[in-house]
């Protein structure tokens, strides 16, 4: 069947084009100096997160939450035994810092992922369906958008007792989709007018098929871009929450470490304790942000216009 053959060919060429696009994107990304820095930083944090499993195996006193050095009962500075020193009850700061990387990734990526999935689905639906659905979804987005996420999570944390890390992830996600959905909606609106959507509609494709088969692949890169920014937001909110003392007590996050140093009175005395978690939060945010910016350049051809004017 010639039409079938054509379809296969088309599919193959589309796939090829997509791969080519990735390769091209990577080529552009590589040229972005800050983007490269972001990637390097990020891989350091990934390594830290992976390494966080090691210290407790070496000695139970390196358990980030419950392990204490039997010989140390107060905060001490860096030593061979404790590379970054110990906290006020003799727990190893370095293993806490490593565990913090794991928490940051978990929180950041999980909540960004959920909010992106939500935002993309809602944005696509609103843009594609239009009418009442659109109005309803977008007004909801407006309402959520004006609420300061941190304070909302704070209120919920206070009202419903301490939240565990997954509820925090979920709440951040629930309050962070509107920004994404607006962008995706705008993108969907322009896509909707493109001929290939019309063609698909004429060919009798169902709404669902059009949404997922034709529109989604085109908005996904944008969603992916937004995900990097959402990751930074989520990490920051979790850290701030923990810093204020509303974090999940069962996890050692960097915000929690800062809260301990602040609340136990070691702030002026223990720079080895005050500095590392703050630097880590800031740098992981920076690295995701740089990643996002570099990706933005890859995705947004407008920025590549320079030098193309003849």
């Amino acid at each position, binding site marked *: 069947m010639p039409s079938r053959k054509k379809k296969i060919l088309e599919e193959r060429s589309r796939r090829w084009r997509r791969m080519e696009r990735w390769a091209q994107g990577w080529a552009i990304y590589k040229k972005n100096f800050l983007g490269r820095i972001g990637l390097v930083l990020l891989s350091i944090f990934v390594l830290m997160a992976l390494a966080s499993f090691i210290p407790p195996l070496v000695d139970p006193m390196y358990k980030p*939450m*419950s392990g*204490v050095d039997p010989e140390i*009962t*107060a*905060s001490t500075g860096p030593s061979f035994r404790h590379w970054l020193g110990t906290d*006020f*009850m*003799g727990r190893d700061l370095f293993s806490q810092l490593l565990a913090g990387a794991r928490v940051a990734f978990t929180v950041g990526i999980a909540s960004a992922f959920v909010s992106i999935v939500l935002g993309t689905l809602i944005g696509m639906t609103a843009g594609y369906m239009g009418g009442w659905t659109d109005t309803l979804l977008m007004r909801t987005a407006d309402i959520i958008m004006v609420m300061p996420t941190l304070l909302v999570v704070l209120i919920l*944390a*206070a*009202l*419903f*007792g*301490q939240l565990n890390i997954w509820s925090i992830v979920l709440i951040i996600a629930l309050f962070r989709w509107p920004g994404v959905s607006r962008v995706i909606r705008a993108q969907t609106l322009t896509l909707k007018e493109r001929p290939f959507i019309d063609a698909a509609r004429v060919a009798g494709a169902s709404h669902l098929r059009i949404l997922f088969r034709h529109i989604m692949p085109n908005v996904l890169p944008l969603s992916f871009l937004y995900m990097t920014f959402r990751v930074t937001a989520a990490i920051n909110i979790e850290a701030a929450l923990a810093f*204020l*003392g*509303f*974090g999940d*007590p*069962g996890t050692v996050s960097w915000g*929690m470490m800062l*809260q*301990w140093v*602040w*609340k*136990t*009175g*070691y*702030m*002026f*005395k*223990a720079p080895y304790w005050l500095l590392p978690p703050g630097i880590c939060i800031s740098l992981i945010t920076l690295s995701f942000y740089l990643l996002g910016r570099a990706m933005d350049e890859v995705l947004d051809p407008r920025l590549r216009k320079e030098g193309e004017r003849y």
Partner: protein
Amino acid sequence: MTSKLKKILVLGVVTAGLFPAMTVFGGSNPVHYLKAGLSEEPKTLNIWLASDRWSLSVLSQIYQGLITRHPETLELTPWLAEDLPVYDPETLSYTVTLRDAKWSDGSPLTAQDVAFTANLIKEFKIPRHFDRWSFVKAIEVLDPKTVRFVLETPMAIFLSRTLATPIVSKKEWEPVAQNARNAEKPLTALINHEIKTPVGNGPFSVKEWKEGAYLFMTRNPHFFGSGQKIGGRVMGPFIDGIIFKFFGTSDAAILSLKKGDIDMFWWSVQAGYIEDLQKDPKITLFKNERSAMYYMGFNLRKPPFDDAVLRRAVAILIDKGFIVTRILQGDGARMDSVVPAGNKFYYCPPDTVWGEGLSRQERVKAAWWLLKEAGYSWKTPPVNDAGAVVKGRHIRLPDGTPMEGFTILTPPADYDPLRAMSGTIIQEWLREFGMPASAKPMAFGSLIDQVKVRREFDAFILAYGKLSLDPDWIRSFFHSRHDKVRGLNMSGYHNPEFDRISDESATVMDENQRRERVCRMQKILMRDLPYIPLYTPKMIEAVRNDRFSGWVNTLEGIGNPWSFCVLKPEAP
């Protein structure tokens, strides 16, 4: 130099120049204002609403009770009253004669004021106070200086608790009460009444409250104690006033103290600052006992903690010494009875101190032995056949069912990091033993709701920060009568023997007989363990020693009315 830069520099110089100039004020006569740091701003100056310690700190300078406690002996000492009242067993009544005292507006304190205060509490059922007055049948004004209280039943706490109630001025409060009576919600109207400058008869009175910044009190010229000798001390106040500064965070307060911006920080200093402060020659630290109980409570109404054996095993597993040295950084004492050891008269050492002096391994073995005897079993016992301690797994109740996961509720870290941390550590100890414990810090309001109102919980860690020296509260905490929604018996502890002794203790008027009852109660509780007392923290306060001296140490620290009445400025 650019003009912009110049401007900035000039502004900087002006700013810097202004500040030293501002530190001196008051003219030729040196005035001595004590600057005291509070960790939070007082919420209100309405004595009937105030429940936070900051408001109470300020109000304790203003409103006074008839009786107080001597700082060293802790014995009852007459305060507004001229003498300790005498009990007449015939009529079940106390007669109190008042000192010659004046309100800060100059009008005299009369028996009418005392009667008015008591009646106000009884009429409006003012929370926190009403309980202490509910058994007072009548208040009779015999003459302007004498008042007689007639009780319904003999009640041991009348002297120490009821008569410590702050007395308010009838002149000031009568119109307020009248308005409140006409309101739809009388009590709400009363406690929501705003008071800017309360009329009291304490050593100081409020001059100015700048919200969010400071509260300025000046010496009350009409203070009844001035020049008198009370409790072996000549009363002042010898300072001209107190400026309370509000700090939201301890770091700021400690910094101010070091710089000399405040003379005293009225709050327990965290361990982290202590070493630094000790090095400072201008700063003196005071360590005092507290009348506080930090404890772990259980829900005795349902498994698994309805079994006293299990509670005992938990008590063995909890290393209080560890908590004190590690989490409290040594600034506290382990607690082995519900009465704090600082309360020397009523404290009784228990017969058995669970797990005393044992190492971690020995604790595990002891607890394991105890539970094994009681029929508990494990999938992997915490002590293996060779007698070595291993990680236990899946404990089973005597009836063979696996123990379900349970939570230990604690206050959140922002409220009290130490208790939150203790919860986590206890969780780890129990888990090593094979118990499915998980610590869950919870916002305070939710925690109270869970424990007192809904009563859906397994275990919790809470504290009583300021237990009165008279241990009448033991009865409230553990009497089966108080096992109800919002009741104080949070564990749901029922023990008829205990109920009987505690009821007896309430009405025994002889101190020594009462003490014997209280001892028996303590021993019963330490056997049944509805609560495991964990620790009593120390009160560590820091003051500058270059401006004022004469702080009075007592239980609960130097921040007491005695201190403020006798404090003297250092000679310049």
